[in-house]
């Protein structure tokens, strides 16, 4: 049975490769997505409770039953955040009615001293973030530091107020499991969107 399945897969692979060599297919990644196995369950996602741009308390656990993308930014960032947040904003629009209903974005600030709820609200508005599905969170610096550490994000605030940080966007499934992390800001937003939707379909 397995050998038969393997043969069928091999035949499919050969057929796709032949087709690719003839056509220079522009979006072969989409084909791959249909062959991929489910995203691995890495570990339970680190939980947190922080303050949103509206001043309310928000916990990761509040979103159980939804797929959540957790990213780390700060509003005065001039390096990677001005690339990441618009990219997420674009994906937000592409998700249509699933956004907010089935998929949530959370952006945690790395500059808790300056990124108050009011500042985060202005930032969210500037990037067209839909408040029904996108929470911008702040909290006390030690709490933020603990969350970044547990998500494997490096962040170090300099005297100038600038924050040296890595960019890591984590996707958490409906059951609260960390399923995949995206490095940097140059990742494929299409693949990111497909991963979000693949997790929505799991339930």
């Amino acid at each position: 049975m397995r050998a038969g399945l393997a043969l069928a897969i091999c035949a499919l692979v050969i057929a796709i490769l032949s087709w690719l060599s003839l056509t220079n297919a522009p979006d072969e990644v989409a084909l791959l997505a249909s062959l991929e196995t489910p995203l691995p369950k890495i570990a339970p996602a680190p939980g947190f409770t922080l303050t949103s741009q509206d001043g309310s308390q928000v916990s990761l656990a509040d979103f159980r039953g939804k797929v959540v993308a957790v990213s780390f930014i700060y509003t005065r960032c001039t390096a990677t955040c001005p690339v990441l947040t618009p990219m997420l904003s674009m994906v937000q629009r592409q998700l249509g009615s699933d956004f907010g209903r089935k998929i949530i974005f959370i952006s945690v600030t790395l500059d808790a001293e300056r990124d108050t709820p009011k500042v985060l609200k202005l930032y969210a508005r500037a990037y067209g973030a839909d408040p029904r599905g996108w929470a911008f969170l702040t909290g006390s610096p030690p709490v933020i530091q603990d969350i970044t550490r547990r998500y494997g994000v490096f962040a170090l605030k300099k005297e100038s107020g600038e924050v040296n940080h890595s960019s890591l966007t984590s996707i958490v499934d409906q059951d609260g499991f960390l399923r995949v992390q995206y490095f940097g800001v140059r990742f494929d937003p299409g693949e990111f969107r497909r991963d979000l939707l693949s997790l929505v379909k799991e339930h």
Partner: protein
Amino acid sequence: MAQFALRRRRFLAGLSAAAGASLIGRPQAVARDGRLETTSIRIAKIAGICVAPQYVADELLRAEGFTDIRYVAADAGAPAARALVRGDIDFTANFSPPLIIPIDAGEPITILAGEHVGCFELFAREGIRSIPDLKGRTVGVQGLGSSQYTFLSGMAAYVGLDPAKDIRWVTSSSPKPMELFADGKIDAFLGFPPEPQELRARGIGHVIFNSTTDRPWSQYFCCMLAGHRDFVRGNPVATKRFLRAIIKATDLCVTQPEWVARKIVDAGFTPRYDYALSTLKEIPYARWQDYDSEDTVRFYSLRLREAGFIKATPTKILAEGTDWRFVNELRRELKG
């Protein structure tokens, strides 16, 4: 076009994974995120810039649960591999040939993942334009057995030279080969960061080969991460977490090169900030997903075999000295 090639490479890697998964069913994690078997790790401290990720991974390693992180001094290349074999260290980043040679000898090294491509540059004096031009010329290396010697021998054999007969090797640990080249006493010199940066700054010689950009060498990893076989077998969760922290640290080299350069200078890994920064910007750390670790070991095993450094076939080296399960899992967990 290059972007298309990279996407196709990832696509093919993904297809292989998908086909493999169909053969074995749903993949079983080699190291589910269970309890760490040990919170102590020892990592080689090598005076090189390109292995910066392991020097800035401290906080990330702590986030993975390691509490006792020790850096053990070792020279790059064969000495670091020997330290691994002796069990003085648990992990090292190293150029693949110095890892493959002891694996051929049956030593307990397990190569786990590629880290980055690059970063050797072959400097030559005027009149030498390519590797075949090295025939009959003097080339400086620190010792017969050094990474530079094995790498250049492999390159020479690849273009049809007999490295033992056709190249006049000049071994010298003091003065260093770079100084011999700078003084005009040898014809060519294979540099490793920060040496190429220094030679360029001083306007000495010209580059006839750069492993970051010149095919086929630029198509394979340079430094790879390896562990002591017993540690890897006995501590799969710790091994995977170590790899995850180092891979995340490579992203720091991409996004925060200035901070990384300052950190490795302040920590004494390399003396000059400007050379460290230019090295970090030249090495394409962000493209670790685009290269194939197994292909790298196969390629270098063939080159080492051609040059007479090893007897085993690439298949045997791969079977006895590599374990890609950890990095294959991480490729699915860490994208970008």
